[in-house]
Each structure stands twice: as C-alpha cells, then as structure tokens.
C-alpha cells in the first residue's frame, strides 16, 4: 500500500503524519507522540465516522428532523447511510432519541430533535396507527 498523508486531530498540535502499511506492520512518520501513531493506525485500518443528516417529516411543525447514527459507522459506509435517507419520510410527532431507520451499516439513525405534530389538510390530529 502506498503512503498516506494524514493530519492528526488527537490534540491541537495537528501533526502531519506520513503513514504506510507495509508487511503487516504500520510505519508512521511525523507523529509527536504515541497517540498520533494510534490515530494513524485507526485511520488506515478501520476508520469510522458518525453520520449526521436530516430526515423528512410529514405533518410536523418543521419539515425535517435531524438525526445521527447510533454509533460510528465505517467511513466507507457514510454515503450508504445518507442514501438511505433519500426517500425516507417519517410521521410527526418525533421524539428525541426516536429510531428513524434501523440497521444501516450496522447502526440505526436516531432523531436529535423534537418535531411536534401539526394537524391540517391530510394530517389528522394523531398519526394513523401502524
């Protein structure tokens, strides 16, 4: 594998790391401390990220609700999560912590905002029972 340049974000020093996986081992240059080497190892072997996005809401006081993955997902999987929201729509009310989508890249998508229900045309006062 070729050399990868990374900026370490473990501390404010922001060391620029040159890292490569060679023969099963990891070589890191430029790290000011051991935590930088560990950071490079994670980023090269199993980088993960939380994904933050919004999901459409029907009959809410706002048209979308914000959401975050219940745990970090593999970095390569980030776009899979957001693509799963392309046609997703939930119905208000939405509570904090409500699961909006299960089992995407091994995580679920959880609401990080409340959306109150508003009644109106096509939106009876309480949601249709499932």
């Amino acid at each position: 594998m070729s050399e990868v340049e990374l900026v370490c974000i473990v501390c404010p020093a922001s060391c620029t790391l040159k890292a490569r996986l060679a023969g099963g081992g990891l070589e890191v240059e430029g790290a000011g401390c051991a935590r930088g080497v560990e950071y490079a190892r994670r980023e090269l072997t199993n980088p993960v990220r939380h994904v933050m996005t919004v999901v459409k809401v029907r009959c809410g006081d706002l048209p979308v609700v914000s959401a975050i993955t219940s745990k970090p997902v593999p970095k390569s999987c980030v776009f899979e999560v957001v693509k799963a929201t392309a046609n997703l729509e939930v119905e208000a009310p939405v509570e904090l912590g409500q699961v909006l989508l299960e089992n995407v890249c091994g995580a679920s998508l959880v609401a990080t905002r409340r959306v109150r229900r508003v009644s109106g045309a096509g939106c009876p006062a309480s949601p249709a029972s499932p």
Partner: protein
Amino acid sequence: MIERSFDVAVIGGGPAGMAAAAKAAELGLSAVLIESRDLLGGVPLQCIHPGFGLHVFGEDLTGTQFAYRLIERVERSGAEVMLRAHVHSVEVEAHDEKVVNVVAPGGVVRVRCRALIYAAGARERTIFEIGVVGDRPAGIFTAGEAQLLMDLYGVLPGREVVIVGSGDVGLIMARRFALEGARVKAVVEIMPWPGGLMRNVVQCLHDFGIPLLLSHAVVRVAGRGRVERVVVARVGEDLRPLPGTEFEIPCDTVVVAAGLRPNADLLERMGAAIDPATGGPVVNELLETTVPGVFAAGNALVVNDLVDYAVEQGERAAEGAKLFVEGGGLPAADWKPVARGRNVRLAVPHYVSGERGAVVYARVERPERNVLIRVPELGLRRFAVAVRPAEMVRLELPRSAFEGVELERLTLEVVPRE
C-alpha cells in the same frame, strides 16, 4: 403597556442566555429570559453535528441535543421565559434600575430589572463587509442561513458550492452540502491557515476531498439570475489580491463563512465601551460592561469557538448579577487592566480585581507551536504544544495567584518555550 419587575433580565435565548437565566434563578434571583424567536435554543438548534457539551455535560452532544439540555435546565430553574419578544430599547433609570422595552405580540412590555445580562449572540459578516464585488444574484448565502435552510426547513440552497472562509460553520456546511449530494468546489480562505478547528478541516474537507485554498480570496461573483461563477485570486501578505493570479470557479452557490461579529449594537446605544479587538463590550471578571449592572456573555461578548464557554460566561454573568442585585451595585474595587502581550489578538475580560478567581478567554494572532501561555505578573504559565487563532485559549487565574502580589496590571502573552 404592561410593566413587569425582575431582579435580572436576560436578553437572548441561546446557550449563554439560557445558562445565565437558569443560573440566576438557581441563585435565588427572579429572572426573565427574553427571546426574539418563538423558541429557545439559539443557533445550536440548527447544528446537527456533535462537538457540543464536553465541558458542560461531560458528553459529546449534537447542537440540537445540547440545546434541549439547556432548555430543560431553564424550565427546571423557574426562570420566566418571554418568546417572540423583541428588545426595542433599554432605559437606564438609575445605577441599579433599568427598563427593557420589549415589543411582543400582545403589545409592549416594560421589563424593569436591577441587573441586565446581554446575550444576544453574534451576526455573520456579509459578503459586502469582506469586499467581494460583482453581481448580487440569487445563490449567495451566509453559512448560518444555509444551515438553517437545510437543517431546519429542509431545502437545499445549491448544487455546486464555493464556500468563502474556513471558519467552523463554513467547514461544517461544506460537509453538509457534500452529504446531501451537492458538489463543494472549494473552500476559499484569505489567511494562510484555516479559520476553523483542525478536526473540522480533516473530517469535513479531507474526508470528502474538498479543496481548501489558503491565502486565496473570492474577489468577484458573477451571474445573472443565479450565481454562475466566482473569480478567485491568490493574496499577498497584505491580504490583497495579487494581480495576474485570478482564476474562475464555476458554481451556482456562494456560502459566506467569513466569521462572526458580536451583536453589540444595543450595548453601544446604552453607552457601553466596545473593544475593537473583540467587537464586543469591555468587561470585568464578572463580565460586567462599563454600564453598571449590565453584563454580557456568549458570542455577544466575544466570539467563542466552544459553546461550553458561552455557557460558562452566562453562569459567570449570573453570579455577577447576584452580587450586583444584593449589594445595590458591585463593591468598589481596584480593577487591573489585562494587557495583550506577545501573540495575543484579543483577551476577555479586560479588567480583573484579584478579589476572586477569574477566567481569561483569548485568541492568538497567528499559529505557533511549542509555546508557553503565561501571565508573568502572577507567575502563571502553561505549556501548549500548539496554539491557533481558531482555537480559544482559556486560562484560569485562581484567587490564590493574586495573594501577596502587588500589581498595576496583568499581561497575557504567548512566548516560545526555550
């Protein structure tokens, strides 16, 4: 007109204001929180990313989650909340008596209070302030407006985006656009270093392959009905565009993330002294402005990088308000100015008494590695592997450090470690 009376009135229902109102109520004062929108929470309500609350709640929360925590605290505290309440003006009737004139849907409310905490946040610098010329078609947004449109009101501001300025909001928005399938052509930063946290540079730009053009400026926007392109140029050390370095980036959207300015207009009108370095008021260690009994906190005081600091300032201002209300004014003190020394661009508060511990918030002028942050007069020093303008320096000056020290002033400085 209705008249109401409180010990403390707090203007602004964002993190600093919520913390101030809750803390004041928790300290036994009668407090009212005046917010212009129809809900509390302020800007964090539109921040769907984490990075909030590590200091205050010991957890990494999203802005939205953080806002709800504080809203619940306000509810528990017993502070009264006025929503859709716009502050028209403040009359200072006496040393410890102010009237806040509030325009609300039911009419004008005159809120009489003894102490006032001003936490009206900051506003974003506009494209006009940063000297960008050219056309003004649709497709130009401030970062905050773009964020609100996407994450509260569910609309996508643009498809092909150039972001002006690499402050944290700009970086966060670069990632948001990328995650919704838009193309972020570049983040253009006039300084030779990024304006936001390195974590955000890495996770918002590097992760998505978004170019960061340092020492570059957007000089011109062109487009008829909608933005069609921007002209970018490299800048010299004087930050002015270098002739002959211009190039075009086609795009349909320009997002201006060129930093914030404290919203200090009302304070200025009340006669408070303003610090040109922060754009906010001059304050003492209790965050009292030069108008007695008027305190400031959060981004209205100084633009913070962490919301936790805004909360801390709100609480500090509430403590100051309690002393003020109970004593009919703060006791006279021998205030010592806090001077800005080497590589310190701004520092808040501007005066300390030495009679109690204080917290200094500061920003450096330029990035530097391997430094000491120190206050030589107090013999205080702290090592830092690196300091960057984007990251605030927070330094505690404990009460004990002042004991037995005769001083005329303090100097905060950042010096290389020998």
